């Protein structure tokens, strides 16, 4: 019971961001789950390590929203794997997620970089 709640909490915390990261990764072409994890790790300079416990629920949720579509294909090493591809609706969602995120970064940045008033005087 406790173990499950831990995962759920993580998903909720990262939800918006993780969805955006997955969609962004799929912009460059179809990927399977393992490929997404690797791509995110490489592109973030080995910093971002996505938990599989968050990744798969997120992928299935995105598929349910019709932002991604999936199909079974062979990898180069002849491993059957499920590939996810971003849809038109997914691209639209990514754009809106991105602008919201940028807005959020600006707002938070403004708060954080503002010099404390009064103390300098």
């Amino acid at each position, binding site marked *: 019971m*406790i*173990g499950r709640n831990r995962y759920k909490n993580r998903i909720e915390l990262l939800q918006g961001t993780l969805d955006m990261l997955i969609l962004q990764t799929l912009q460059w072409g179809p990927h399977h789950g*393992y*490929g997404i994890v*690797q791509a995110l790790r490489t592109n973030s300079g080995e910093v971002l390590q996505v938990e599989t*416990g968050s990744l798969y629920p997120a992928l*299935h949720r995105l598929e349910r929203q019709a932002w991604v579509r999936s199909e079974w294909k062979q*990898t180069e090493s002849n491993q059957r794997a499920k590939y996810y591809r971003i849809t038109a609706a997914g691209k639209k969602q990514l754009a809106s997620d991105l602008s919201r995120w940028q807005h959020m970064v600006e707002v938070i940045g403004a708060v954080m970089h503002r010099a404390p008033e009064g103390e300098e005087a």
Partner: protein
Amino acid sequence: MSVFSRSFAKRKAELDEEIQAHLQMDIQDRKDRGASSEQARAVAMREFGNIALIEEVTRDTWGWVWLERLGQDLKYALRQLRRSPVFTATLVATLTLGLGATAAMFTVVDHVLLRPLPYADSHQLVAINEAGKKGVTGGTPFLDLRQWQQRSHALQEIAFYSSTNHISFLDGTTGSARVIAPQVSANLFAVLGVHPAMGRGFEGQSDGSVLAGEAHNIILSDSVWRTTYGSDPNILGKVVKLNGESYIIVGVMPRDFTFPFGDANPHVWLPKVIGDKDAVRNANITPNYQVIGRLRPNEAFETAESELKVIQSDVVKQYSDPYDRERVTSIKLQRYDDSLVVVGLKKALLALFAASGVLWLIACVNATSLMLARAAARQREIAVRGALGASRWRIVQQLAVEGLVLSALASALGLGLAMLMLKLFEHGLTQQFHIHEKMTPNLTVIGVLAALTIVSALLCSVWPAVVGARASIEPALRQGGPQSSSGVVQYRTRASLVVLQIAMSLILLVGCGLLLRTIYALRHVPLGFRTDHIIVANMTIPSYRFSGHNMTTELYQPLVDRANRIPGVQSASLMTAVPLGTTFKMQFTFSAEGNSAAEIRRREMVSQFRAVGPEMQRVFGFRMFKGRFFNESDTATSQSVVVVNREFARQYLGTNQNLEKILGQSLVNLTKNRHTLVIGILDDERQVSIASQSQPEIEICIPQITPDTLAYQSVEGLSMDLAVRTDRNPSSVIPELRELTRQSSPELSDSTFTTMDQVAEDSYGSQQLAASLLIVFGGSALLVCITGIYGLLAYLVAHRTKELGLRIALGAQRGDVMWLVLRQAGWMLLAGSTLGLILAYMTSLLLRTFLYNITAHDPWTMAAVTALLVGGGLAASSIPARRAAMVDPIEALRTE
């Protein structure tokens, strides 16, 4: 469902493969980078995390997990129930009894009270009657209802019809059909909001009276059109014969349309042409009509009622005879659907329905108590499940599913039981509640049963489930056994449930006892005549075949003579209606005009009127109080005579002394100049119903009736009973009698045959029915209740084995231990009976309409059924008590 679960399984397999592929790729990458096979596998697995959990969380996003869980719960519940067959059987049997009884009674309620009428907006229809000093009148003269039509604003339209239950004979393609033919106003169908399916209705004036040119038109019901004329599509315009008279068919009503509502006989409708007799208000010649109106939309019932009362206060001034005026001073307005069910009958039915509801409650309480015991036994299991991560809601859900499975099983069986009960009580139910169609539980009933199932599932499983789920996990696990403290709470809850059961069972048992006393009393009422070895043929007379002939000499005398010649027949006789018969009723009132006290008293008298054959005394063996009965010397040419009964003489003379003074008086004329003399006084007898005292009665002699006798047509031309006393088994004469009646006239072969014993028994049919139903309900309740007491005490003893063993080891006598257990039973029975008697005291009044010769609060009945219940309860509890006394202290303590 199976398709669904298969696709679910497929998706699960895909998810599994997806994750396995992820792992394989990870392992491969690590091996490529130089790790050993095992190492790569171990690291990949560790990094991936808990596969099962990730799969589950992922599946959660699919949104149909609840279904998967429900399937699991279902499987689990079935396994649980199979593992404890005794528990399952007890619980299912209890619920089956409760649900079955309720479903059966609801079927009856549905048929009698909830039937939708086959008319448009039937809630707007009202039945209007005049009422006065002597209650509601039998019908309204045209002049009076005409004024309602003209002056009422609250009512949109008012129609009328002359009601009849006399059978008419309609010549069809396949012989003559027996139909009912009421005469209706032209606007009746419009008021009912129903149009003919073929052809047209009757044309009339604004007051609803039919145009004279329509007098020989006829409208058929759908069933007559189908069965009598083979659904002939060209039926309109054809000429048919009804009672020998020709009519032109102008319309056919739609399917399912009946009017008046609730009569099983096929109908045709004739137009009511208003004639000269309708232009006056003379009680003896003016026809009376039943009146039905439609309220304007959004007009309140009360508005119409007060408006009609105002109009009636003017109408009543137009009556010249002060006596007649007093009978019509007011209005009785009823909704049409309410007017169809007699108030007493409705109350009786609801009382029986309530009784079945009480049985259902008892069953539910018992089931709850059983489930509670089970929840206690499974406390440890529930605790373990909680510790392993099941949420509280999940545990409650699982137990609720168990309850649902149980009650679904019970309701399937209950439906069967309901059908069985309806079959067993068919005769009584159809007789008492005038149900004509076959009674099978319909969709409404099945719907109600489903609702009851869900409610009873919730009642009997969720509460214990909540109690079970609320229990904290750790202590249950730590102690490893049933806990003493929660056990006490448990025991108290269950004890209160048992008390409740005892109380409710007592209500049913008191009702049952009162009705058994009533039946006993009714069976021992001295009737005043014999009912054994008599067969009665009720004949509907096709009088149109005898128009212009004398029915007395051409139909009746030969019929009686031939019946008397059948071997084994002691005597046969005719009578317009046998005592206690319900097929035909004639009443006699004096039309004396004077205003002396004696004349007013006589005018108030309402007497039974019968035409009787002289052999009747030999058939029924009733006694004469004074004078003589009719005999063979009373013929059409001799002095006309009548006999009256003792009650008649008493009311006529206004005294109980010297009743013989009525002998020789002339009370009735057979024709204008044939006076009759009273020649005898019958002793009192129960001729109307077994439960009611003798009513005044006056009888005339059939051989003296001639075609010019007043009311000849009503007396001889509608209905006649042939009563036959036999040496042999009465029903063995039926074939010969049927053949004999057929020879007299082909229509008479449709006569109904009953034994006089059956007629007498049907006279207290409502009590008999209520008694048998309550015996079933009360008996079931008693049984359920006793198993409840037994179950609880057995649980108590099992629970306290160690303590009892210790007591015995410390020197307690076995008798003391037994007493300890019996004391528990004692206080439950005491509390339950006290509560039950208080409730029974309040509810037994509902049964008042059924009771005869006993009050609803009869102390002896109450005491006897209480004794029965307490005795049964103590007997049941003596088994666990003895078991407690037999506890071996060594055995009991060793388990510690």
